[in-house]
């Protein structure tokens, strides 16, 4: 799915260069679940942004399905995001004025679905995450766990190839965290999508097939465990 070669990302803070990622090589296979851990500010989110086409590397190549995302024009990267990549954020990032169903529908807008088709798929996705009875609720009317379920439904409604999750349980209590991870685990197993998940939480990371450690912009990946999706 992904092949990253010598990827580096440098930010400039005034006149000071900050190397967020340094010489990173990584291959992520189709259907793989990779968890990345590491201290704050060591490049985890930067790596996720590069994988999702939200940011471009300063150097190196990021091949996604054989295409170098770093060389694509912005419109083409936007199309890749719209069709193939789902995102989940720590703070859920739901549109506060839209209902749960409308938030999920928002992911289908760039794909040109008709309103009726959008609504049907959104309802189906919300039902799949256990929120079939919360379609018309605004984010402010939902708990944190329910909001993250809406975000998961939004990420998966378009049936992407990849799900990128940035601290998806970071804002949740332990019980809700387990529910969300169970949900993601089930979805991963049932859909066969590729999942990259950033987390500080080892209890979450250990559910992945491989766990990488990101320190000072460098990624070290432990040996994969033999855990396959059903």
């Amino acid at each position: 799915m992904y092949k990253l070669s010598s990827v580096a990302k440098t930010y400039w803070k005034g006149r000071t260069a900050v190397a967020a990622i340094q010489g990173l090589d990584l291959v992520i296979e189709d259907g793989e679940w990779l968890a990345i851990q590491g201290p704050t500010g060591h490049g985890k989110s930067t790596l996720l942004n590069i994988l999702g086409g939200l940011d471009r590397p300063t150097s190196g190549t990021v091949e996604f399905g054989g295409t170098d995302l770093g060389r694509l024009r912005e419109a083409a990267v936007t199309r890749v995001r719209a069709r193939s990549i789902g995102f989940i954020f720590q703070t859920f990032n739901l549109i506060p004025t839209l209902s749960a169903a409308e938030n999920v529908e928002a992911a289908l807008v760039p794909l040109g679905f008709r309103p009726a088709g959008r609504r049907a798929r959104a309802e189906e996705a919300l039902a799949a995450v256990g929120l079939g009875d919360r379609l018309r609720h605004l984010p402010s009317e939902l708990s944190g766990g329910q909001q993250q379920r809406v975000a998961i439904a939004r990420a998966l409604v378009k049936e992407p190839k990849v799900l990128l999750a940035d601290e998806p349980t970071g804002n949740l209590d332990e019980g809700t965290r387990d529910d969300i991870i169970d949900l993601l685990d089930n979805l991963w197993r049932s859909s066969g999508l590729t999942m990259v998940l950033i987390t500080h939480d080892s209890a979450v990371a250990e559910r992945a097939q491989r766990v990488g450690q990101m320190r000072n912009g460098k990624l070290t990946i432990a040996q994969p465990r033999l855990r396959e999706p059903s």
Partner: protein
Amino acid sequence: MFFIYLRRELRRRMRQAILIALGLALGIGLVITVTAASAGVKNSQATVLHSLYGVGTDVTVTRPAPRGTSPATAFGFKQEIRAVRSGQIAAGTKININDLANSQYGTLSAGSVATVARQHDVKAAVGALTLTDVTVTGTVPALSSGSGSFSSSFSTTSFTVEGVDTADTSLGSLSSARLTSGHGLTAADADSDVALLDSGYASQNKLTTGATIDVGGTNFTVAGIVAAPQGGSPPDVYIPLAKAQAIGKTGSASLKNEVNTIDVAATSAANIATVQAEIARVLPGTTVTDQDDLANEVTGSVTSTASLANDLGKWLSVLVLIAAFAVASLLTMAAVARRVREFGTLKALGWRSSRIVAQVLGESVAIGLLGGAAGIGLGYLGATLIDKLAPKLSATIGAVNSASVSGGSGAGGALKALAGSPHTVSVSLTAPVTLTAILLAVVLAVAGGLVAGSFGGWRAARLRPAAALARVE
């Protein structure tokens, strides 16, 4: 999704949306009110001008009165004075003299009317005679009592008379008059002793249709009563031109085949200047006046109100609009700044920048349209207040050039209704809200929304998704 998102977003920041809309409404309302007031002032000016000039008349031609011409005084009376002084008329003799005098303008031959009508850019030309009927009555005093008491022994009454071409009343002062009773003058009346009376004069003298009036010693039957437009100063009596030519005199000279005013219609408004030049060429020594010249002769609150509406009102509207646009733009940019993560999320979902910009623009234009609707309401309110509260405007005509009217230069021709003296008329100011003003409001509302939305949209379009998502709120 576009409209759902738009509606929800506007509801979310309703207070800000109302503030922006009110700012735009204020500017747009002011523009409508000022536009309506300007239109009202123009209408008032047009009312004054039409009453003097006649609807459809583009240019009037007159010849200045010869030097030494005295104001309307019965020529016959001067002869009587001489007769008294020479002893031909004895003291105690009763005198009743009635003259129809041309004292205001020099004369033009009837052929001049045809000459003007032949000019290339002239659509029609009609001659007229503006005269004054002067009646002197009294008893001749003894000469020893002195000249002061001699004059005071007589009373003088006068009224204005217009000899009109009955074959064409579409030009000149009769063109703007409205028949209120009886019938108008037709070509068949050209040689008849029939007259039309101005409603004011008829009312003042208790004359009705069918009554008889003495004009220059000839009895005319009143065929009808006409009302001049508001603010006008029309002649008191209209009689057929041929009759006016037969009865009227300049001094002792007959006015047969003479006119003293030619009313001219140009083929189009764009040709008025050309027509003026053509007439000045073929009739040297004449005064050729158009409505602009006439407007320059109008002073008083109608002109100061016009200046106020055109200058202060226009610039005030522009300033308020600029301020409203600026506030709307700043608030929209601030709103976009607060929604950076939201837009970053939408970009992560695959929304193109253009779609996000369209969303921001749509919200701004919707606010602009709300402001436009409120602005139209405010504009109507302003116009209604002007209608209800505005004092009557005065228009003083001829004060600027009154000397030149009788002296023989300036815009005397257009001022034929004034009988040679400055004249103040009162006109109501109404502020009509036109369809054009409403369309202007809609355009301004959309423009205001687009301007504000463009700044916000530009800011939203420039967001890098990763940076937007990293924004801490």
